[in-house]
């Protein structure tokens, strides 16, 4: 295993420390328990937004802390959800008196730890609501799974809920908007290579040189199926089609198209995927009115990409366009 790290046990703490030093104008790092809050603290009267999860998905979530998006992010160990005793103080730090919405990716560990944390925070008098993100169409949402996973669509949920909170919506309204995004966003991803969790020291799965893993999550889990090596256009179709079908997109729909890198894929390849995804949407009569291309929800150094589509209306578009000032998204 080759990584730019020191002791594998210290990666998260050291990395978040560096993050805090580099971006002291935007964030304030709380070291023990570890969480990242907005510089300047909670905003009086504004609904607080807290997210978190295992580390290794950078810039998610700490990169989305700042004006117009999250108030706090809670990084767990690599690919391991954070613990309630980290999350609860982050919720408290994010509370400006108008309650806190937690944005939780749908994994058993995240759900359980955020649930406990919310109980603790509520016991301390904070009103907490939760939205579960489950945009990954690779997993069937059925009796036979823990439900669809939360992946790159989380960025859209955090951005739009963040804008709603910033404009002064109350907790119910922010939660309802976040849920609308969850309802209208879908993602599917693939991997060309596995990734190596520092404390594991070897790749998360074994993939031959001519194999591609389709339907991966963001934790280096193996995907649903393996296919042979194909061109980017063909692979993109394998991602976009189930996403567009699941959303039942029809001619005239306007969408946000997010092509997300898994961490180790060059930007140039993401744009090749974007080009094809956009053409496929266009063939369906769907108009891409907003775009995002880059590494937003990663799996360490995994090579691969995911395609996310969010159905837009005027309100969601306006909230997407609203100013944001975080380290990873800014406009």
């Amino acid at each position, binding site marked *: 295993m080759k990584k730019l790290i020191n002791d594998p046990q210290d990666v998260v703490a050291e990395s978040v420390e560096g993050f805090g030093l580099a971006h002291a104008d935007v964030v304030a790092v709380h070291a023990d328990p570890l969480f990242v809050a907005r510089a300047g603290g909670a905003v009086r009267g504004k609904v607080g937004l807290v997210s978190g999860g295992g580390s290794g998905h950078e810039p998610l979530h700490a990169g989305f802390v700042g004006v117009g998006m999250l108030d706090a992010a809670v990084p767990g160990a690599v*690919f391991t959800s954070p613990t309630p005793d980290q999350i609860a103080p982050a919720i408290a730090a994010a509370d400006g008196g108008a309650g806190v919405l937690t944005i939780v990716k749908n994994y058993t560990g995240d759900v359980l730890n955020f649930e406990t944390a919310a109980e603790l925070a509520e016991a301390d008098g904070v009103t907490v609501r939760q939205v579960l993100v489950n945009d990954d169409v690779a997993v069937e949402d059925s009796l036979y799974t823990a439900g669809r996973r939360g992946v790159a669509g989380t960025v859209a949920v955090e951005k739009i809920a963040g804008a709603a909170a910033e404009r002064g919506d109350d907790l119910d309204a922010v939660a309802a908007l976040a849920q609308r995004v969850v309802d209208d966003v879908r993602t599917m991803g693939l991997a060309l290579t596995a990734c190596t969790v520092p404390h594991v020291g070897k790749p998360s799965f074994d993939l031959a040189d001519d194999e591609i893993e389709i339907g991966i999550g963001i934790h280096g889990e193996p995907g649903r199926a393996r296919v042979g090596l194909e061109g980017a256009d063909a692979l993109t179709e394998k991602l976009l089609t189930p996403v567009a079908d699941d959303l039942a997109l029809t001619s005239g729909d306007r969408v946000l198209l997010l092509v997300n890198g898994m961490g180790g894929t060059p930007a140039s390849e993401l744009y090749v995927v974007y080009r094809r995804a956009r053409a496929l949407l266009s063939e369906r009569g769907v108009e891409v009115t907003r775009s995002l291309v880059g590494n937003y929800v990663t799996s360490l150094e995994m090579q691969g990409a995911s395609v996310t589509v969010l159905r837009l209306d005027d309100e969601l578009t306006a909230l997407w366009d609203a100013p944001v000032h975080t380290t990873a998204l800014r406009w």
Partner: protein
Amino acid sequence: MTLDAAWAVDWVRRSAATVAEHRDELVELDRQIGDGDHGENLNRGFAAVVAKLDALEQPPATPGDVLRLVATTLMSTVGGAAGPLYGTAYLRASKAGATDALGAAAVVAMLESALEGVVARGKASAGEKTMVDAWTPAVAAAVEAADHGAPPSAVLAAAALGARDGAQATVPLVATKGRASYLGARSAGHMDPGARSSQLLLEAAAEAAADAD
């Protein structure tokens, strides 16, 4: 024969040792059908429990006190799915263990409470390829041993054997809860890491009890 706080402390220390020893195996099991952190997470958690035990000024008075310390420490250091699940299991068990010394019936009650805690948090039932599949036969074996008049150490020995069989039986299962469920049919053919760690923890309990005898 009853089991006291010293037994519980010994159980915890043996748990930490066996988890450290099997860390890589648990990581590898979780790498196969999950995300490869189970061994690391549990190891971090039990190391923290031992550190807390070592730092105590007074030894804990009851098994329940020990288990409560385990519960809160795992909850705050393990993370992932296993943190809250084991945390709740030990928390419920600690309530059942809140007397000076546990007889066979109290041991059974403690194990039953642990299983209830896992089920209450995780909402899994037997056959879904989770730690429930180790705890369910463990509790059943413990009940049967106690019904036959076995002492606490034998009850725990039976529970450990039940857990071992249960963990083994997860191999062919297709997961429908937890991270392994994302793999669908590809999850079959691998032992569930949480079931395996449950087996290790119950074996540690039985060994500590055998030593206490």
